[in-house]
């Protein structure tokens, strides 16, 4: 009997281990996972219009992509960013390590601040872009489109730093739009009015902590909220309740993608091909070739790709340039070929739309230097607009313009406006 009682806990332990293994194995039954917010999104996803975002079931659109876009610009939009890859980077050397891995000067990123950055391989080609959150002097969160754990771990050699992938453990929401501040305030996040653009702070939520930053991907007033996965639903409900009278709506990616284009922001593997995914080596891009040259700080000391980047600059080996284009007319030029003098092919449009905010036909394009760099006149795009099974071919004049395409005062106003 005594033996049996001693044996039992061991059996239970084995059973628990086997159950855990079996649970881990079972992912093959669900090829597209839900995020921690999925019950709420499923309930609102009237169109059942899903796509795969890094293996998660994410909505293109929930009920009306036009109205979802206008929720961003006129009300407040709630967008689930949980599938974004997240790394927790912590340790005494975290700052020095990230300064070495990423382009921008991390020593100037104060605790409680966020910056948009990018990182390169040793040949200076962009591995990804993303946002770096400095949660404390020794703790960071890096968010990105693609996955980089081997690169991040290999780069950690000799640094006293721990790198952990925490995509599943942390749920994320973007709350964007003119009423977003008022909603957070009304939801009881006292002190949120003190957050300036790229500030972050921690707030109490449901017995846990939510990290709120004044950041976003829309060029509008907006915030991003990160919370432990098990507190996701209560956070969603809290925001939805507070936002009810301020027009809060959940949105899908199509609407967000429009807003980000107006803001002039690029998307990895849409506007450029990331280094670890480029099968064709002529698709690789240096930061200067995709508009991220501003991140490079040659004086900050060594960082991955520095030698190659500086050499390419010195020897004028940069072959491409990413530009904003304003195109005459109103027909979007998506994936149109860009010509010099209507005849010489010099590049490709990667994203385009007629912008409701700018009231202009805008586009992002990659051009072969010197076009778009020193030669910016006499550029044209050839638009193949498929209309009822016929291409309406249009040759339209394109002008290189600075990004962002729209600049909203409310994005940066302090204190943020109470819409």
């Amino acid at each position, binding site marked *: 009997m005594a033996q049996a009682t001693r044996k039992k806990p061991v059996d239970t332990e084995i059973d628990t281990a086997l159950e855990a293994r079996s649970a881990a*194995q079972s992912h*093959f039954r669900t*090829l597209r996972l839900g995020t921690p917010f999925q019950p709420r999104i499923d309930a609102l996803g009237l169109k059942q219009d899903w796509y*795969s975002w890094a*293996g998660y079931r994410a909505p293109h659109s929930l009920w009306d992509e036009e109205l979802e876009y206008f929720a961003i610009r006129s009300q407040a939009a709630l967008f689930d960013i949980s599938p974004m890859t997240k790394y927790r980077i912590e340790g005494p050397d975290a700052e020095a390590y990230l300064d070495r891995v990423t382009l921008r000067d991390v020593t100037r990123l104060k605790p409680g601040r966020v910056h948009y950055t990018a990182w390169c391989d040793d040949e200076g080609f962009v591995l990804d872009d993303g946002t770096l959150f400095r949660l404390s002097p020794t703790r960071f969160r890096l968010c990105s489109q693609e996955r980089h754990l*081997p690169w991040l*771990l290999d780069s950690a050699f000799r640094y006293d730093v721990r790198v952990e992938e925490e995509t599943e453990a942390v749920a994320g929401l973007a709350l964007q739009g003119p009423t977003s501040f008022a909603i957070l305030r009304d939801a009881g996040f006292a002190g949120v009015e003190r957050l300036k653009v790229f500030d972050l702070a921690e707030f109490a939520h449901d017995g846990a902590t939510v990290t709120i930053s004044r950041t976003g991907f829309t060029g509008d007033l907006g915030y991003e909220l990160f919370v432990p996965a098990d507190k996701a639903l209560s956070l969603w409900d809290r925001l939805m309740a507070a936002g009810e009278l301020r027009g809060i709506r959940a949105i899908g990616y199509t609407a967000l993608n429009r807003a980000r284009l107006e803001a002039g922001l690029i998307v990895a593997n849409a506007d450029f091909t990331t280094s670890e995914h480029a099968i064709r080596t002529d698709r690789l891009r240096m930061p200067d070739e995709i508009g991220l040259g501003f991140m490079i700080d040659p004086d900050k000391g060594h960082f991955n790709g520095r030698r190659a980047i500086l050499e390419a600059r010195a020897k004028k080996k940069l072959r491409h340039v990413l530009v904003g284009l304003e195109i005459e007319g109103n027909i979007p030029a998506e994936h149109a070929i860009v010509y010099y003098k209507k005849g010489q092919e010099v590049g490709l449009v990667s994203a385009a739309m007629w912008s409701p905010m700018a009231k202009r036909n805008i586009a992002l394009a990659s051009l072969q230097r010197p076009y778009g760099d020193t030669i910016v006149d006499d550029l044209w795009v050839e638009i193949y607009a498929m209309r009822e099974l016929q291409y309406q071919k249009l040759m339209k004049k394109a002008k290189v313009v600075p990004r962002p395409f729209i600049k909203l005062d409310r994005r940066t106003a302090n204190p943020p406006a109470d819409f």
Partner: protein
Amino acid sequence: MKAWDAIVIGGGHNGLVNACYLQRAGLDVLVVEKNDWVGGAATSRELTPGFLYSNCSYVCSLFRPEIMRDLELPRFGLQVISYEGGAVFTRDGDYLANYRDHDAHRREFARFSKRDAEAYDRYSRDVTRQCRFIQPLLMRTAPDPTSFKPRDLGELLYLGKKFAGLSAEEMALTLRFWTMSISDFLDEYFETDVIKANFALSGIIGTALGPMSPGTAYVLLHHYMGEVDGSVGAWGYARGGMGAVTRALAASFKASGGTIRTGAEVDHVLIKNGNAKGVVLAGGEEIYGKLVISNADVKRTFLKLVEEKELPDIFLRRVRNFKIRGSSGKVNIALDSLPEFPALPKDSPVYRADMHFTDSIGRMERGYDDWKAGRWSADPFLDMMIPTTLDPTMAPPGKHFMSCFVQYAPPKINGRDWTDADRDGFAESVIAQIAEYSPGFRDRIVHMEVRTPREIEAEVGLTEGNIFQGELTFDQLLFNRPVPGYAQYRSPVGGLYMCGSSTHPGGGVMGAPGRNAAAEILRDLAKPTLHMSPAHDVI
């Protein structure tokens, strides 16, 4: 007496592909095959009632789609069914699966290592880059680097340009790929043993090398270049077994007017004044032909079917030294029910995929140590699958055919020939390994076909039972395959050509050697090749 325009020795898939193209070019072609059936190593035979085996080759991916199209193989019954990934069983009762879905694949790897799960994209990028470099070479005759003929210079230039078009990093990778061991190569990407073992298997299949032997990285590449109906890298089962490939080829050949004689073993090639004039069958019958094309491997062709005096010394020496070492065997099993693998969830797609039990590179390498010592691996590496989970035509309802590719099996046991007792011992090592992971497995066995290198050589005619008709190491590739100076399907004997896997681009049920040889023959005859599709574009 009738003289055929061309006589093809051996009705394997390359012999038949070659014969089809020649016949369609207007030649009167005869295929002579020693067995009572065609197919060579791509056969499906009913050795026990109701069960069709894929007796040798067992999966399809490398077969060139251009050939399928030219020879109308779908019309003649060829259908390839893609299967779903695979798995390695681990000794602690778990498994590592490969799923076709990219994210499922990553999540599965993350069960073992989050880092390795995220390393897969870079690995996949690098392997894809290399495949794209090699793939266009498959359907081209390798250039003769010593020749000044415009065509050879052009082809050399093409190779050079392709190489020069690579970035410095890619060039380095290419050279490493062609010379590295698969184990070293995988170390550059992964750190988890079972994950490395999972990828390493493609580097050793059919090769008398271990995962730690230089050159095995290229063998992996060779297995990544395939597709199933445009699904790149996919592998599939030919419906009705691999014999369906050669049945369709034979039907296509006959429909275009070709003639096949089975049960006709060639004793030797008839040669007069240095030119091939036909073949002499084992019974003494002489068959005349203006050209003779051998689908047999280069050793069998030139050491058994051609008299030594007809061949230059250097050529003979190189043929003798050509590496075509037996390294594998095959166990085909008829089962009265689907085996169970308690490690696998009952609804796992892995039942319909390839299964392996070697969960570390170290175990693979120790298996190779046995080969070097002249014995079969005590703990063999199996590439095992149950095609009847997707193809119901190969077994009676509810019953199953299991195909086990087994490595390593040496051509000789301690320097002496295999005996029946050795063969049974070899089979037992396989059954014992499966039974370890599948309780009750032995009781399900209805019938077994066990093929050691001895049986493969005797029945199929592959020297030492080597499935590639010669190893795919870099010293035996491109313009060195099978031997320098004779890489363009011609031989020292006038009118005698080679079309088997001993020639460029090598083994696997690909058909490219047979097709490329036909292109060279038609060039020599100044015949048009409009019926041969150009290689698919790689853009």
